[in-house]
């Protein structure tokens, strides 16, 4: 029974790390995959999500509703940001990086001035369940399940809706998609908004587990960006899932033995080695596999 419990515990650790990386990076990777733009204000969008959730929760809104509210608020803000600033930087990747950095400075410092150095915390919903001598947080189990649902939802969105079809077309060849009547401007705006919303949603989900402060976004910067670099921009879903699972495989044992910081350093080193082997990320490798199978089938 003990060894069974240990296996469950290891799986739990692994899934928790994977879900953390996936949720940190998902919004970023959605935007990157579509527009080849890295949104450096990503951490601050997560901060906005956490702020929205905290404010709503302390006004008596149930937590799950808070998370959805965070998605909507930040998605709206994302759309606004895209319309006013980001859309001027399509095709200028480095310019987009720098301008979103400027936005992140304004957002974090603005939050500090408007809301002060801390917002009241949200207690972690749910208790814990025990298996053998280990106990697991129900909340994190829910988060793991939710990230699976989220990925399934994104997959359905990209594969079964008109938006998804047009989005994939714009990703492959924007000029051709435009020529065939796809409104790529609208696709870009919706994608940026979706990515921002996902960041806000993740921020709300992480809100009970961290302290809610103006500069809280910084702690997600390293894991999120490493996940994106390893995942690559070729395919949003395989990139996000493959990369977070692979990195969790690195982080879980090393973090368990040497502590969280060394775990994150191991992530960076793993990312350096991985980009040396597959410069376009894991999603490009998977995509090539899929393409080859289709060709021979």
């Amino acid at each position: 029974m003990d060894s069974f419990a240990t296996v469950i515990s290891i799986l739990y650790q692994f899934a928790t790390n994977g879900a953390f990386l996936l949720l940190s990076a998902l919004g970023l990777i959605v935007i990157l995959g579509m527009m080849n733009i890295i949104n450096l204000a990503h951490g601050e969008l997560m901060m906005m999500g956490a702020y929205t959730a905290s404010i709503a929760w302390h006004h008596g809104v149930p937590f799950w509703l808070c998370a959805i509210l965070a998605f909507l608020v930040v998605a709206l803000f994302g759309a606004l940001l895209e319309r006013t600033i980001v859309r001027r930087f399509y095709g200028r990747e480095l310019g987009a990086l720098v301008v979103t950095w400027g936005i992140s400075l304004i957002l974090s410092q603005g939050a500090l001035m408007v809301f002060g150095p801390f917002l009241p915390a949200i207690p972690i919903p749910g208790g814990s369940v025990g298996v053998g001598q280990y106990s697991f947080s129900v909340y994190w189990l829910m988060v793991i399940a939710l990230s699976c649902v989220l990925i399934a939802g994104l997959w359905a969105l990209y594969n079964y809706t008109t938006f998804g079809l047009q989005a994939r077309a714009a990703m492959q060849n924007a000029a051709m998609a435009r020529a065939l009547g796809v409104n790529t401007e609208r696709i870009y705006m919706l994608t940026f908004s979706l990515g921002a919303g996902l960041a806000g949603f993740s921020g709300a989900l992480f809100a009970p587990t961290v302290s809610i402060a103006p500069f809280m976004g910084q702690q997600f910067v390293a894991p999120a960006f490493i996940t994106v670099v390893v995942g690559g921009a070729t395919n949003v879903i395989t990139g996000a899932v493959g990369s977070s699972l692979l990195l969790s495989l690195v982080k879980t044992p090393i973090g368990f033995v040497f502590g969280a910081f060394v775990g994150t350093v191991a992530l960076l080193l793993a990312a350096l080695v991985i980009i040396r082997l597959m410069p376009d990320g894991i999603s490009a490798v998977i995509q090539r596999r899929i393409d080859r199978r289709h060709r021979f089938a």
Partner: protein
Amino acid sequence: MGRLSHLLKLLTGPEDIGRSPLFWAAFVAVSIFLFVYPFWLTEFEVTNIAYYLLNVPIALGLGLLWGYCGVLSFGQVAYFGIAGYVYGIVAGNMIGEAAGPIIGSLCGLAVSALVAAIFGYFVFYGRVQSWIVPILTLVLTLLLETFLGQTAGYQWRIGSVQLGGYNGMTGIPAFRLGEYVVMGYRFYYYVLITVIMTYLCLRLLVNSRHGKVMLAIREDAIRAELLGYDIRARQLVVFVLAAILAGVSGLLYVQWGNYITPSQVGLLQASLPVIWVAVGGRESLLAVLLSTCALNWLNYTLSSEGYQYALIITGALLVAVMLFFPSGIVVALARDLPKRGLRALLHGGEGDAG
């Protein structure tokens, strides 16, 4: 004599704004002014001005890397911090020995260069996409900050020097050459000479053959490669050079304030060189030089008045510049100033034609 005229020709080559004789007259005049006017200032004021100047090398390094080579780095402060800390460790363990600060400086620069070389090898030889370099350099500097932040306590002691965790390393010895301890007025001149020499050397570099190849890589990496240049090695060399320049600023910083804290390699500090370079104009060394001094002065003035808007103003400035002056304010002014006189001053002969 032939060598000298060759150097002069390189110095006035086309790859920076400010090429006319009038510009060089102004450059010399400003330099002389900077050398002379500390006589009218107190030691405190001179030390402040030295602080605005000491950030110029890291900014010039980033300008070279981003503007001339097309590689953006958000992590230049990592090399700044590495050089500063290594200097503190080495020189701090050699207190009393005349050569300590010199050996410490060399070690600091060497370690910065080494880290950049290892890091750059993976990035450039992997031929990654352009957005990956800034992201990974940013992650590197954040991890460095986290690492240095947890080095509090007695076990984090190298020789007789404590790393000091979030409180940082204190009591770092000043630079000295033999008998002369470089402080106060001497420190100002030491920084001023370093800055002017760095600027002139980089101007020689960007107008040299190597500089032309660098620009070719920026303009079209594949074409440059098809012409037979090893773009990976070239980018790596520039990356290491930029790291060394960041290290120079780091050395000057610790020799100026005699302390360094992990927040020097944090996210906010990391954004500053990018802002200086973007606001001035990344494709001109002169613009970077000017905007770095101006923005350091501005930032110092704002924050010394306890101005909580300082970060918002810098952020807004960055966004506004990227939106309205994508090539930078100084460069835009130099290019578009309608006044003929100023145009002739900044552009030399060709400016009149445009």
